[in-house]
């Protein structure tokens, strides 16, 4: 292999791809990045056998070929070079890199040992084209409620599925649940995408990307952002039928300014660290207010109050962290917060009638 590329392109590709390479696995070559020529382009790829990321960059190819080299070393070397052209040349199993006054020889491993990268057929799969902004928001709204309990694999990802003509994202860890409607769809989709994959896609989004192409087939999914592709396995299994868990009616309904709600939740949370985040919310219809109470036996206690539109008195105990996280991803200036007594699920959503997102939190048993 012998070729020239610009430092800028190569550094960007290496940093986009390199995060996936990991030396933690049993197979040492997974800590390497694959460089392979493809007519007049250079493929830069890495995989951890759950996800594979690839990027093509333009190159002046003198001699086709391939090599794998340790991810950290090459990324850091290339990113420290000045913005000039970089010459890459494979000699045996070594990669010779030359740029201006800088030369390096990196010991690599021949590319034959690198795992084959999965491919996805464009014809037999379902594709979506989603605005980066929408994607970012929808994923960050749902990803927070995924579980990291590996004994229930289906909960460790976000459930992308079609329902009544819409593509819907849902996730639950058994204690909270979130659902976001993304776009209209005519196709039938049902796929659980691993949390790690979605985080990787979020990180791959750069300022100049406008749209994301998503391609599903039965066992895998591919995301394409500009020239970067992320291919991942899907989680096998049936996502629980979560819609039956959403309460249809609630006895206490509160509309409150979001920033007020965030403030009193955060303050109350300071006194809830000892008790595992437990805070008690009381809604008073006559006083038109909601108050939060928390106790730390060693430190002291706190009561904070904010005015709100309240329909129906009630009290509920929640984990302040869960409440905080939910509020941080809800759109709009005011929030609708509803619950029914101390045991039933609480629902949080934007007070805007056309909202496409809701979040459910289970109360703590006191």
């Amino acid at each position, binding site marked *: 292999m012998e070729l020239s590329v610009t430092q800028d392109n190569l550094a960007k590709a290496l940093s986009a791809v390199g995060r996936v390479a990991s030396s933690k*696995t*049993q*197979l*040492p070559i997974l800590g390497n990045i694959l460089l392979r020529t493809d007519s007049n382009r250079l493929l830069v790829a890495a*995989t951890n*056998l*759950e996800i*594979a990321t690839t990027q093509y960059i333009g190159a002046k190819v003198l001699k086709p070929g391939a090599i794998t080299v340790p991810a950290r070393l090459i990324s850091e070397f290339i990113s420290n070079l000045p913005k000039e052209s970089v010459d890459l040349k494979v000699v045996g199993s070594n990669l010779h890199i030359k740029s201006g006054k800088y030369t390096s020889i990196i010991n690599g491993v021949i590319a034959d040992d690198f*795992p*084959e*990268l*999965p*491919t996805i057929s464009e014809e037999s799969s379902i594709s979506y084209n989603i605005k980066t902004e929408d994607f970012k928001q929808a994923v960050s709204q749902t990803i927070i409620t995924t579980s990291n*309990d*590996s*004994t*229930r*694999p*289906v*909960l460790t990802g976000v459930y992308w599925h079609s329902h009544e003509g819409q593509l819907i994202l849902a996730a*639950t860890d*058994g*204690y*909270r*649940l979130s659902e976001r409607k993304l776009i209209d769809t005519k196709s039938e989709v049902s796929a659980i995408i691993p949390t790690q994959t979605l985080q990787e896609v979020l990180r791959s989004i750069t300022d100049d990307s406008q749209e994301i192409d998503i391609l599903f087939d039965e*066992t*895998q999914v591919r995301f394409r952002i500009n020239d970067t592709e992320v*291919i991942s*396995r899907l*989680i*096998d*299994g*049936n996502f*629980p*039928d*979560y819609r039956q*868990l959403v309460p249809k009616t609630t006895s206490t309904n509160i509309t409150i300014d979001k920033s007020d709600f965030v403030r009193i939740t955060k303050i109350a949370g300071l006194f809830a660290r000892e*008790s*595992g985040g*437990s805070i008690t919310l009381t809604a008073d219809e006559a006083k038109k207010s909601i108050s939060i109470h928390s106790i730390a036996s060693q430190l002291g206690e706190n009561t904070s109050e904010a005015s709100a539109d309240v329909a129906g008195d009630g009290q509920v*105990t929640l*984990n302040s962290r*869960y409440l905080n996280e939910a509020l941080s991803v809800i759109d709009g200036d005011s929030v609708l917060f509803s619950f029914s007594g101390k*045991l039933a*699920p609480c629902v949080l959503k934007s007070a805007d009638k056309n909202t496409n997102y809701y979040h*459910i*939190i*289970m*109360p*703590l*048993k*006191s």
Partner: protein
Amino acid sequence: MHHALWQSVLGEIELSVSHATFTTWFKNTELVNNDESGVTISVPNIFAKKQFEVKFNDQILEILAKNGVSPKRINYTITATGKRTHINRETTVNRSDQTQTAESLLPSSNSTAYQTKSPLTAGGLNPRYTFDSFIVGSSNDLAYTASQAVAANPGVKYNPIYLYGGVGLGKTHLMQAIGNEIVKNQPGTRVLYISSETFVSEFLDSIRFKKKGFSEKYRNVDVLIVDDMQFIAGKEKTQEEFFHTFNHLHQNNKQIIISSDKPPKSIPTLTERLRSRFEMGMSIDIQMPDFETRCAILKAKASLSGIELGQETVEYLANNIKTNIRELEGALNQLLAYAEMRGISPDISTAEGLLGNVRHSRPQYITSKQIVEKTAKHFQLKVEEVCSPKRDKHIVVPRQIAMYLLRSELHMSFPKIADELGRKDHTTAIHSVEKIEKAIKLDYLVREQVASIREKLYA
């Protein structure tokens, strides 16, 4: 018989690729179908599928052909099998320890929806390993009896119980049997089976990623089973963490079961406080099975597959594979698969033809000269020294061991043994053989030395 066929394919591939490659790609694979349309192999994910299609396909076809199967093509399908080998209930357990808990959104009846197809039950136990399927012989009856006592009264008698012995002698089987028996007798008991390697890596993860719940996971169990303890050697911080876990469990009368390839004393770089704790319960070694036990194992395994093996065949296999039960089972599986594919009966001639493969690297006959040489080499002595009239202690014991081996492996007469080692009187040989026979029963060091020389002889 798909499983047996696939096992023989795996067996051959394992020899040709590196260990890391083998565990990365061939774990959780299975041959699921074999008919006119071809062979179907299930693999865990898309990455494995692609890798098999491109890199391993030809090799698998070739090995299948050797086993008498020549499919038109191989299809690969993706099935989720147990992704983690340790499936446990602890995550729900440690939540209930907090003063307040969030009521779960998901009703527990839903849980069937996301059970994996893995045969593993909770706690990483494999239900296949039971006391009933364990074959008892003189080499392991003490370990067996003690394990049963532990299973009957966990946490009361023999805590911890420490089982040690070479590879493939049934340590894991016994430990899992204890776990399974306890779960059977007292459903709801929290049993956790892990290898010490899992403990180490989870501990490192908990430090590295500041994950919480590590110590709770291990401290909230009723029975903790740790396999292959020797891998914790030299890892100081992990040993310290394990020490605290151990103390916590022991104080609360929770049963701890440990296995290793060596007794606690012989594990280098095991901290003193862990060593003394491992020794405070009961340590038992499991030895190589004798000829009769090997025969019994073979018969039991064969009848599990629904095949009756002739006494001759059984004796032939048992005679030829002496060191390791896993190898014994492998040879049997290969024989059964081969016979099934070819439609012939698994008799002694088939076995002879096939075992040529298994033990191609082994000498058919051991000579007396080899025994003396290997023994001398093991003790870093010269053959002349062993055969000399010198009576220094460091030479006498090796000489006696050599005599013992000549007797036990070659059934030589005492006068010939004496002659072989330059002794005039055959009573010396009788005395030596008896002495080592006794020492083997009493002294671990002697037993280990004899075993390792024997291993070298047959290696």
